[in-house]
């Protein structure tokens, strides 16, 4: 049974593009205006990780749900679909 998110993510097939479909528009906004960094909490795949002074975007594990785009209080995430055929590939439900 997959308990941790890492274990859950191992269950999913990703056909990653080399280029990110997610982009933090302005890294300064994350650093200076956004103390809560909600995206690092609610993202269901932990795509967003704050590492001390910079937001890292692990786009390869993205489920393309769109929460970050809608949930970012500063509209600071440029969100596109990955190139056709790329990104997450669900096999079941």
């Amino acid at each position, binding site marked *: 049974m997959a308990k941790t998110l890492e274990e859950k993510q191992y269950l999913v097939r*990703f056909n*990653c593009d080399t280029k990110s479909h997610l982009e933090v528009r302005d890294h300064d906004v994350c650093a200076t205006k956004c103390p809560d960094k909600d995206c690092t909490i609610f993202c269901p795949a932990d795509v967003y990780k704050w590492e001390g002074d910079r937001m890292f975007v*692990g786009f*390869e594990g993205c489920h393309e749900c769109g929460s970050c785009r809608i949930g970012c209080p500063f509209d600071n995430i440029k969100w596109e679909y990955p190139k056709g055929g790329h990104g997450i590939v669900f096999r079941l439900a």
Partner: protein
Amino acid sequence: MNLEEYRGVWVFIEQREGKLVDVGLELLGAGRALADKLEVDLCGVLLGSNVKDLAKDTFEYGADKVYVIDDPILEQYRTETYMKAVGDLVRKYKPEIFLYGATANGKDLASAVATEVMTGLTADTTLLDVNLEKRLFEASRPAFGGNIMATILCKKHRPQMATVRPKVMKKLDPQPGRVGEVIEESISLKEENLKTKVIEIVRSAKAAVNLEEAEIIVSAGKGIKDEKGFKMVEQLADVLNATVGASRDVVEMGLCGHDHQVGQTGATVTPKLYIAIGISGAVQHVVGMQNSEMIIAINNDPDATIFNVAHFGVVADAFEIVPLLTEEFKKALKNEVEAEEGGVAHV
């Protein structure tokens, strides 16, 4: 096909520009064990131009006989000439097992010969054995991207052929003065009837980054923080003669090019040794390297998932341990060389 007619273990002795290539000698080591088990001769096959003198070296590494075809037409490797030469030898002398190095030319040759003499060939083997009872060669290899090992058998055709990955088998310690039999054969092809011609061979020590074929990879994750950290990783790689790998974050930080990236969006690698420095072990990285033979992980976070796939782990500050590792390793190699030289002096 009368299987009983086929006897002996053969090894294709690859030479490049008149020098023996290591893998041939490694295969003599592996072939020796098979030949001893089967109580048959271990034979080398040596093709080229002005290569006859190389034969004696193969005796020191375990060969009993060497079939040599020394002809200017064989100076450079070409499938059409080598396939014909080897095919003729096989038809004439009928070996039961035939090993080739899994090099570019070794694989090319083995594939062509297999069709030429209509027999089975197993590619990229890493484990060789014989079933004495059935007198059957058991060649094993990783399959499906290294997810499984499979033993391949060739029951009704001879010779039983395999290509063997370089640096998997061990060379025997050379026995100076050990001798064997040289059997010279000739080839009946004429240059003007050939369809191919090698125009130029370019070898450069500093080839482009090729992670997928690297045997040792030292890989940096975002735990190495900055340029200084990356330098430190490069220094270790240099001492180990390793290829430098990186997680995507490190590439994104601009510390190296994308051709260094290991993982889902980079290369999938299966080196014999993978050293992960400051890599947390996110799935997108791990899927690219989890089938490495030995994985060493260095991370300051004891809960890093990289430790789940690693064989050896240390929880340590990369900035402390990596330079130390570089020094220790240098020392260890140096000691070994000195010990060896010392040994020679005593003989």
